[in-house]
């Protein structure tokens, strides 16, 4: 057997042809990379996907498939979609904080002498004694 078979052909126990669709992206020194992708997508599906892409985009495709496969192996229920959901929620929180901070900046721009606790600290921060009572000044 050709000792320089790619990881895919080694895993699939077949000859690695010169034009093997997998060999540029699944070197023999990283067998786990193809094993992960094969476990989630299957060799046939991966081959079809790579063949449909222009060759200059196949490396990125193989890398992203591997990353998604890893997420799915670690979290069979949510895979990488769990991370998307988490990021969305974090973004929503930061947008809310940004809106509140901008509102407070606008308030202070109009009422620079107002003595008050800031808006953000009115929400769940007990460390402040100055509350927003003067917000309505």
């Amino acid at each position, binding site marked *: 057997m050709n000792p320089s078979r790619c990881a895919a052909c080694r895993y699939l126990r077949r000859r690695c042809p010169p034009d093997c669709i997998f060999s540029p992206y699944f070197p023999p020194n990283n067998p786990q990379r193809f094993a992960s992708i094969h476990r989630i997508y299957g060799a046939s599906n991966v081959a079809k996907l790579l063949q449909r892409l222009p060759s200059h985009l196949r490396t*990125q495709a193989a890398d992203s498939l591997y990353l998604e496969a890893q997420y799915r192996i670690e979290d069979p229920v949510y895979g990488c979609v769990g991370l*998307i959901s988490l990021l969305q929620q974090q*973004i929503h929180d930061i947008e809310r904080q*940004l809106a509140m901070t901008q509102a407070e900046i606008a308030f202070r721009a109009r009422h620079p002498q107002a003595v008050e606790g800031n808006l953000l600290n009115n929400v769940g921060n007990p460390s402040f004694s100055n509350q927003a009572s003067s917000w309505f000044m």
Partner: protein
Amino acid sequence: MRSHEPRSTSSCAACKLLKRRCSPTCIFAPYFRSDEPKKFAKVHKVFGASNVSKILIEVPEEQREDTVNSLVYEAEARLRDPVYGCIGAIALLQRKMIELQHDLALARARLARYAANYPTGVAGTELDRLTMTGLGEFLVACGGFMDSFNQSSSYQVNQDAHMYDLTQIPYVYHDQL
């Protein structure tokens, strides 16, 4: 006279596509109804029926619906963007997160300047919030792929602004927050 058994009319979408008899214990039937053929077609095209079946068997039954929903979402993302799939969405969200954190830091610095110029006894509190969240560290742990993705210009190939309808995630990842 032999009576003819009626053909089953209750095949799930998976068994219809796979052209096989849908058994009462079919693993797909609860999640791929016959009136939603495209749903199974998408996951079959990306993952393959056999791999989907193995994933579903591996998870507890009460989590299979969420599993199917996430597989459908992932399959749709990969069909829309064969190069980056969901990883593209993650990279965009990560980029947006960094921009928003930067904007928030600037806004808080501006607010802190107001507090410094007009002391109210509350100065310095907002400065405590200028540090990055722990999510920044988590995203770094995702590895260099995200950095190379963000730097890659080839991703400009698929730039439909609405490419990921990120409001359509059918469930919230509450439990793992």
